C-alpha cells in the first residue's frame, strides 16, 4: 500500500469549515427573509437541502473514486470511496429526518409521497444501505475492495437516473417545494442558500478527511505493532 498522508492541511480545512458554518447560521437566522407562504419553518431547508445535495455528490464521488481504484489497483482509492459512502449514509439519515420534520410542518404527516426528491432520495438511501453488508460479507480483502468498487460505480451511475425517473413521473398536484424556493428565490435567500451549500460541502470534506486520517493512522499503528512483535 502506498504511503498517503490524508491529514495534510486538515487543520486549516477544519477552521475554514467552522468559519463558513458560523457565517451560514448567521445568514439563516439574521439575514434571510421569512418565506411568504411557509413562514419560519422554511428555515429547515437551509439544512435539509444542502445536506441532500452534498450527500448525493458524495455518492457519485465515491463512484469516481471506485473507478480510480479499479483502474490503478491502489487500495487508498477504495478507502476514499468507502468513507465517502459511509459519511453520506450517516448524513443521509439526517436528510431523511429533516425531510420528515419539514413534511410534518408542511402537511402534518411525517412522510409524503408528493415530494419526488424526497422519494428518490429514500430509494438511493436504501440502495446504499446494502453497501456495508455487502462489503463485510466478503472475506477476502482484495476481492472485497473490488466488489465494493463495482457496487459503488453501478450505484453512482444509478443516482442521476433515479432522480430523472422520479421527476419525470411527477403528476403531483402539490407544487414542488424546491421549485418555489428554487426557481424564484429572492436574492438574499439565494445568497444564504449558496453559503449553506458551501458550508455543508466543506463540512463533508472535513469529516471525510478526518475519518480517512483516522483509518490510515490506525493502519500504520497496526503495521508498526506487527513489525515490532515479529522482531521479538
Amino acid at each position, binding site marked *: 500500500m502506498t504511503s498517503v498522508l490524508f491529514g495534510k492541511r486538515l487543520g486549516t480545512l477544519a477552521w475554514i469549515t467552522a468559519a463558513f458554518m458560523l457565517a451560514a447560521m448567521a445568514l439563516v437566522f439574521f439575514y434571510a427573509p421569512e418565506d411568504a407562504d411557509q413562514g419560519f419553518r422554511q428555515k*429547515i431547508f437551509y439544512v*435539509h437541502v444542502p445536506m441532500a445535495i452534498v450527500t448525493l455528490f458524495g455518492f457519485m464521488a465515491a463512484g469516481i473514486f471506485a473507478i480510480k481504484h479499479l483502474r490503478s489497483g491502489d487500495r487508498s482509492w477504495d478507502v476514499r470511496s468507502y468513507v465517502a459512502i459511509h459519511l453520506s449514509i450517516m448524513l443521509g*439519515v439526517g436528510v431523511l429526518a429533516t425531510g420528515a*420534520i419539514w413534511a410534518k410542518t408542511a402537511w402534518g404527516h411525517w412522510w409524503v409521497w408528493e415530494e419526488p426528491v424526497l422519494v428518490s432520495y429514500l430509494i438511493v438511501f436504501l440502495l446504499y444501505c446494502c453497501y456495508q453488508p455487502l462489503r463485510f460479507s466478503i472475506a477476502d480483502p482484495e476481492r472485497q475492495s473490488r466488489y465494493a468498487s463495482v457496487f459503488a460505480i453501478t450505484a453512482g451511475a444509478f443516482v442521476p437516473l433515479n432522480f430523472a425517473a422520479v421527476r419525470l413521473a411527477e403528476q403531483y398536484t402539490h407544487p414542488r417545494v424546491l421549485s418555489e424556493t428554487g426557481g424564484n428565490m429572492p436574492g438574499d435567500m439565494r445568497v444564504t442558500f449558496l453559503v449553506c451549500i458551501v458550508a455543508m460541502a466543506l463540512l463533508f470534506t472535513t469529516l471525510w478527511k478526518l475519518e480517512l486520517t483516522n483509518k490510515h493512522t490506525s493502519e500504520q*499503528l497496526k503495521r*508498526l505493532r506487527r513489525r515490532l512483535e515479529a522482531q521479538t
Partner: protein
Amino acid sequence: MLVIAEGGDYVAAAYVVFVTLIVVYIAIIASKLSRMEKELETLNELLDKRAK
C-alpha cells in the same frame, strides 16, 4: 432580531438533528483517536524496553 415564530420548534428540531449527527460522529472519531494514543504508548514502551 431573532424571530422564533410559529413552527419554530420544528426548525429547532431539524437543527438539533443535524448538530447531534455531527457531534456523535466526532465523538466516535475521538474515541478511536484515544485508543490509538494508548496503542502508541504501549508500542513506545515496548521499544524502550528493548532498547535497554
